């Protein structure tokens, strides 16, 4: 049995990793909650956002954190245009078409990235990357603490927007009953596009927060996709609180599993949670029953 100090350090590491899972999963759960589809292009769009952050730093010298508003706005615009110009237009209102289009987009994005950027691993070297905050046995990298706090903050802001703003109300109305929303004058297609844009904007934020400690290559987004799907299922499809709590639970489970059972076997904890949730509470921890 490892030292309790090591366990505590493992929990802290897991919470910090979970912060990023939260951001990736929040976008996915929003898109599912409103459009009722699984966005198969999520990992590829995260990868594109990470390349955006990388090139802003490489070509213009813009720090990833300073780039946050630029990348969030750019990702929102990209997501919005993608939905308006492609997904919404060619899906003809059929969910299975949206699934196929997002799957096709993922393949196109991955291969275009490979063509343009090659398969090479790209990293960002920032001066604060090596700054450490020591908490007991844990040596917590400052960028990971920042990403955790920013993820929680962005989640809170998104939750507030959804709860208090007119846009949030419209999104919730469309998510709940799209025909009814249309009848009361809500532009449902516009809400779909905005929701998709917000989901991709979350990926933009995740990309900025990840890059100081991670890398980007044409396949790097896929590392987070399975974990994001698991988080969404655990928290409940379409639930923001669920995605936030689920992401942190997954992060800590993965971390402690790795510490106690080894890096490979440790992943079993995530799968166990996934199976148990599907067996005992298929709607997830915070999902609404149907």
């Amino acid at each position, binding site marked *: 049995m*490892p*030292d309790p100090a*090591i366990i505590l*350090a*493992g929990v802290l*590491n897991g919470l*910090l*990793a979970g912060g990023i899972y939260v951001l990736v999963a929040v976008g996915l759960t929003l898109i599912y909650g409103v459009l009722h589809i699984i966005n198969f292009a999520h990992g590829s769009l995260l990868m594109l956002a990470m390349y955006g952050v990388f090139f802003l730093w490489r070509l213009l010298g813009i720090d990833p954190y300073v780039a946050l508003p630029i990348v969030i706005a750019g990702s929102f615009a990209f997501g919005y245009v993608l939905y308006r110009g492609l997904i919404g237009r060619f899906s003809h209102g059929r969910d299975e078409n949206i699934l196929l289009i997002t799957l096709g987009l993922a393949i196109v994005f991955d*291969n275009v990235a*490979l063509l343009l950027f*090659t*398969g*090479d*691993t790209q*990293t960002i*070297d920032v001066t604060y*990357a*090596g700054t*450490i905050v020591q908490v007991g*046995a*844990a*040596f917590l*990298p400052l960028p*990971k603490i920042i990403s955790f706090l920013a993820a929680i903050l962005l989640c809170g802001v998104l939750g507030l927007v959804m709860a208090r703003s007119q846009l949030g109300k419209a999104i919730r109305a469309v998510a709940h009953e799209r025909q009814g929303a249309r009848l009361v004058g809500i532009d449902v297609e516009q809400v779909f596009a905005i929701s998709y844009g917000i989901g991709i904007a979350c990926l933009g934020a995740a990309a900025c927060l990840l890059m100081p*400690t*991670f*890398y980007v*290559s*044409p*396949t*790097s987004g*896929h*590392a*987070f996709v399975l*974990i994001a799907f698991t988080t969404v299922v655990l928290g409940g499809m379409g639930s923001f609180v669920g995605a936030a709590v689920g992401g942190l639970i997954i992060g800590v489970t993965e*971390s402690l599993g*790795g*510490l106690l059972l*080894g*890096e*490979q076997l440790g*992943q079993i904890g995530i799968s166990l949670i996934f199976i148990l949730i599907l067996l005992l509470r298929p709607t997830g921890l915070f999902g609404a029953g149907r």
Partner: protein
Amino acid sequence: MSRNRKVHVTRRSVMAGAAAAGTLGFPAVLRAQAAAVKVGIIHPVTGFVAYNGQQGRLGATMAVEDVNKAGGIKAMGGAKLEALLGDSQSKVEVGVSEVEKMNEAGVVAYVGCFQSPVGIAASQAASKYNTPFLIDVGASDLLVTRGLKNVFRLKPGFGACVDQGIAALGALNEAAGKPAKAAVIVHESGEFGTGTAKLLAGKLPSVGIEAKELIAHDNPTRTFDNVALRIRSMAPDLVIMSNYQNEYVLLARTLYQQKVNLAGLFSVLGGGFNYKFVKELPDVAQYMMDTNHWFNPQSDKAQALKKRVEAGGALFTFEVYLAYSTVMLLADALERAGSADKEKLIAALNASTFNAELLPYGPTKFVNGQNQGGRAAIMQALKGDIEVIAPTDVASAKAVFPKPKFG
């Protein structure tokens, strides 16, 4: 009469002209008419290891270009090499189908495939046609221990690199007063990482170093924070890494960010130890060591090729010069065989004494398809550059070991 004469003279003139042209004016045309020698070049230019594949293709096509510029295969009337490019997509079955397609196209030999599993299956498929298969990159010793007569590997394999790396590490440790007594091995969980880790763990005691623990990880891995935590709690003197590029960089970065104090970070065939890593993350890479394929820094030809590759915006990674040298080995064998006949080509490869000028190798000597003259180099990242620290005859710098501790 005059008309006949005129015709007669004209015919003579034409005949004489043709004869003269045949000996003087048209040799280039005659050479160009020699049938091109088709070479199948298979790399994973898309998929999981696309970067490595793209680098391999770059080296191979540059070599084909250079052979052709220098007049082609002279013993075959100046026959040009014609590269048929294949993409294995990092998948075994696709690599095999590329072999079949290229066989239909009439290739004389294959060069490839970067990944050992693809190379194993693809060379097996080529053996059905008795077509020589030259492995440019592929670490597994299984490539050349299956009794296939058509497979040749210029570079040293897995086992030889581990032996050489361990011997160099032992010598380094001995010279420094044995600061390293225990090591933790972090490896990817596939055949490459697991195989290397087992070999390393078995051989480290021979140089007085205990392998405290083997930590396996999946590809991709999102974070190495807990691995760093475990390493810190075990307090080894060395961390030995065996991973592909992404995880290699992420692990090195995490150990640096978490300021894990070690006497050294060492790898055998480290997937991410290259110029890009060392130049872009110089603080992370500083003092890291790797046993790998490397060019001979004292070779003018290697330095010239390096400049050419870098001028084109690419990096001079091991895939480039290994693929380049392997195509040159094939061209040399074609010269010796004087024919594209597969039997003659295999015989020429078996008898080959090719001098791979870019590499720190001696003349080739193939035993069961494995070149006995190949050897790896031990490198260290020093001040944003990569220096060769062993073998001493090609070394460009003295090793720094143990590395300074974090303050």
